[in-house]
């Protein structure tokens, strides 16, 4: 197995790939290919992960966030190895003759060669466009090699959901945030539609007038949603404090099986509940329910949202600080 990868060789292969794709398109009577790129997307995943599923997720992201995708598959311990292959992802928009293509590079790396990764990735990044790092491996996120890799990126996206220890996950997030890295956590992204629906309820002036009567917030969280529940609690605390409703009791309890999160706000003459029912969100205000579509938060949907935000996200940063404080009360600020 090879132990070196030459970025120049990869770039040459990418260029040849475009020539081949264009020739093929013309030979088939098509109108050629169109290359689209808005970022470099660096994906770090374990080799044991379902490569087809990951490939499909990246392919689904491309139409909205065309990118040069660099997928790094980590082969784990063992001898030092580093290999690569290049290929393209193409799609033909409905009713159109022109093929749209994005390029992909796949690099396989053993743990022993992880330290070499930045020197390979940096030359492969598309100039003048942001580099977004999506780390799918909780194992790597905890390794010391992770920080130099993260330092290459404008934004780092992690998922604290699968991390075993919520407190440690939030500690890692807070540490990355303190390094002034733009940060995204899919555990927070999973809450967007919930938070949006809750906000929507208070767009109604009558409901907004009930806000100061709220005295209790109850959260139920399922397995894997521990960090999300902490984020939700921190965010609600921030919002209610901003609204001048500081004395609210919070309860976070395990949810019955099959429930991811349930949010209840209660006050004098006011009750609000948000709950998921399969692919729908049910919002109940004072006993009156409203139902809207709420797709299951797939990696594609979550990343689609995160890739659209390459700037500071003050609401998340504040919630992260609050959630870390809730998870690690002894560490203080």
């Amino acid at each position, binding site marked *: 197995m090879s132990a070196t990868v030459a970025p120049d060789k990869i770039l040459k292969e990418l260029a040849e790939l475009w020539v081949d794709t264009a020739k093929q398109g013309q030979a088939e009577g098509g109108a050629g290919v169109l290359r689209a790129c808005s970022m470099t997307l660096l994906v770090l995943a374990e080799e044991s992960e379902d490569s087809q599923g990951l490939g499909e997720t990246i392919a689904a992201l491309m139409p909205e966030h065309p990118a040069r995708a660099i997928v790094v598959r980590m082969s784990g311990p063992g001898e030092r190895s580093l290999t690569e292959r290049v290929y393209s992802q193409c*799609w033909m928009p409905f009713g159109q003759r022109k093929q749209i293509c994005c390029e992909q590079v796949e690099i396989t790396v053993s743990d022993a060669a992880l330290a070499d990764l930045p020197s390979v990735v940096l030359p492969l990044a598309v100039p003048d466009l942001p580099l977004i790092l999506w780390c799918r491996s909780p194992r790597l996120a905890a390794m010391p090699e992770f920080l130099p890799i993260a330092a290459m990126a404008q934004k780092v996206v992690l998922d604290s959901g699968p991390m075993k220890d919520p407190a440690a996950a939030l500690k890692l997030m807070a540490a990355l945030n303190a390094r002034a890295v733009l940060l995204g956590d899919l555990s927070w992204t999973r809450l967007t539609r919930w938070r949006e629906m809750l906000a929507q309820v208070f767009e109604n002036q009558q409901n907004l007038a009930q806000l100061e009567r709220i005295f209790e917030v109850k959260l139920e969280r399922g397995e894997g949603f521990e960090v999300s529940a902490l984020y939700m609690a921190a965010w609600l605390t921030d919002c209610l404090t901003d609204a001048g409703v500081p004395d609210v009791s919070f309860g976070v309890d395990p949810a019955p099986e099959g429930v991811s999160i349930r949010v209840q706000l209660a006050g004098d003459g006011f009750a609000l509940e948000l709950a998921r029912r399969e692919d729908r969100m049910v919002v109940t205000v004072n006993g009156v329910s409203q139902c809207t579509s*709420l797709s299951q938060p797939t990696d594609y949907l979550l990343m689609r949202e995160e890739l659209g935000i390459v700037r500071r996200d003050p609401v998340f940063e504040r919630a992260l600080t609050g959630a870390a404080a809730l998870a690690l009360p002894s560490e203080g600020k």
Partner: protein
Amino acid sequence: MPIENPFQDPLRFERRVPECAVVIFGANGDLTKRKLIPALYRLAYDRRLSAGFAIVGISRTPMTDDAFREKMLEAVKQFSEDTTFDADVWSGFAKGLFYVAGDIADAALYRSIGEKLAQIEASQHTGGNVLFYLSTQPSQYAQAAQGLGAAGLGKGNGWRRLVVEKPFGHDLESARELSGRLHESFDESEVYRIDHYLGKETVQNILAFRFGNGIFEPLWNRRYVNNVQITGAESIGVEGRGAYYQEAGALDDMIQNHLLQVMATIAMEPSASFRANSVRDERSKLLRSIRPMTPDEVRRNTVPGQYGPARIGGQDVPGFRQEQGVDPQSQTNTYAAVTLFVDNWRWAGVPFYVRTGKRLAKRVTEIAIQFNPAPLHIFDQEGLDSAPNLLIVRIQPEEGISLKFLSKRPGSGMTLRPVSMDFNYGSSFGERSPSAYETLLLDAIIGDATLYTRQDMVEASWSVVEPIQNVWRETKSDFPNYESGTWGPAASDEMLARHGHAWRKP
């Protein structure tokens, strides 16, 4: 009570939609079924509407709320092109659908509307916010607005807005008269004149393209731009709307509103901000800068047309005069081409060619900005002038932007050939684009009038079009003057040839 909603997160959430009732006059009509209700359902599907959202359909046909809901359910199923039907979402949406029957001329109708709105305000907590949508015959606009005003519905606990569909009058005087009558019940700031072209993603993208980038602005003037061609072509005929179309014609139906608004968006000065009035001020200023034509100029710089019969794709298609409901001697223009000049420092002397027509070679709406050739030809190659640099903004069917320039042909020798660099909106961003009606309805509910037409813009457009109307009305044209399936009358090509230009064939 908190004044602001503390839960909002503008970075991640869609725009806020306040609670309100939408009252649709003409609820039994085509526009309601094909566009408005499917657009509102899609907004509900996308969680854009507030919990207390309600729709009140108004029409003459007696109907219960349930019967109206049933009818609108059929409309949503039939006309929601790219939206999955979700029974639960529909069920929540349908609970907010109500119906009131009555005659627009009858004061009793407005009392019934008032009672219904009071009930809705109490049950749905709409805060008294109401958007009235006039989807009726244009002749009923003023009557409906006045009826609402007389019943005291022009004002209420919350905001009141009135959406009006085109045409906004049929000439300058009638536009002013209509406006005056609307203003008896609604302030200008409450009147939303809808032009669905402005709701199209690419038309909005023109603003992003021009004012979000620094590289185009230096080229966007008479020094670099040779001419601008705006085309709004349809391949179909009047499709059974002959009787209506006979009264309007291509000039009034397309150029006076849609294409002049597109032209204003392409040629306007940068606005100081992206606030509604700031953008609309600049559009209006541009429209007022278009040089009105004298009768002689109209004869030189405009071409009316009407399609004749032809055989297209092995099928015989009728001429306009053979269409159902059309006078066999009709003088209605189904094609209109005009050369306009903008009298300001940026555009002085640059011709803006605007054309529209039915039964043209293909369905396409686009703007082509042709740049001046290189000042010196250093390449010894004939014909380079016939391949000018072009920036093409396509509005439909494939929304996008293309830049055409010369490039060296690979191989030995220096041979140049034109190449095209394309940005395709739908494919570069694969996400579904909202329909124009979704965008515009949402804007009206939110109170963002940026994409709506203000009265001074309507008047400025009529000031451009009316002199043309006058000459065309007085002149008997030798119609039909173009075959269906072609790019229009030969006189239109000659009009451009007089300026040393030629129409693009998109």
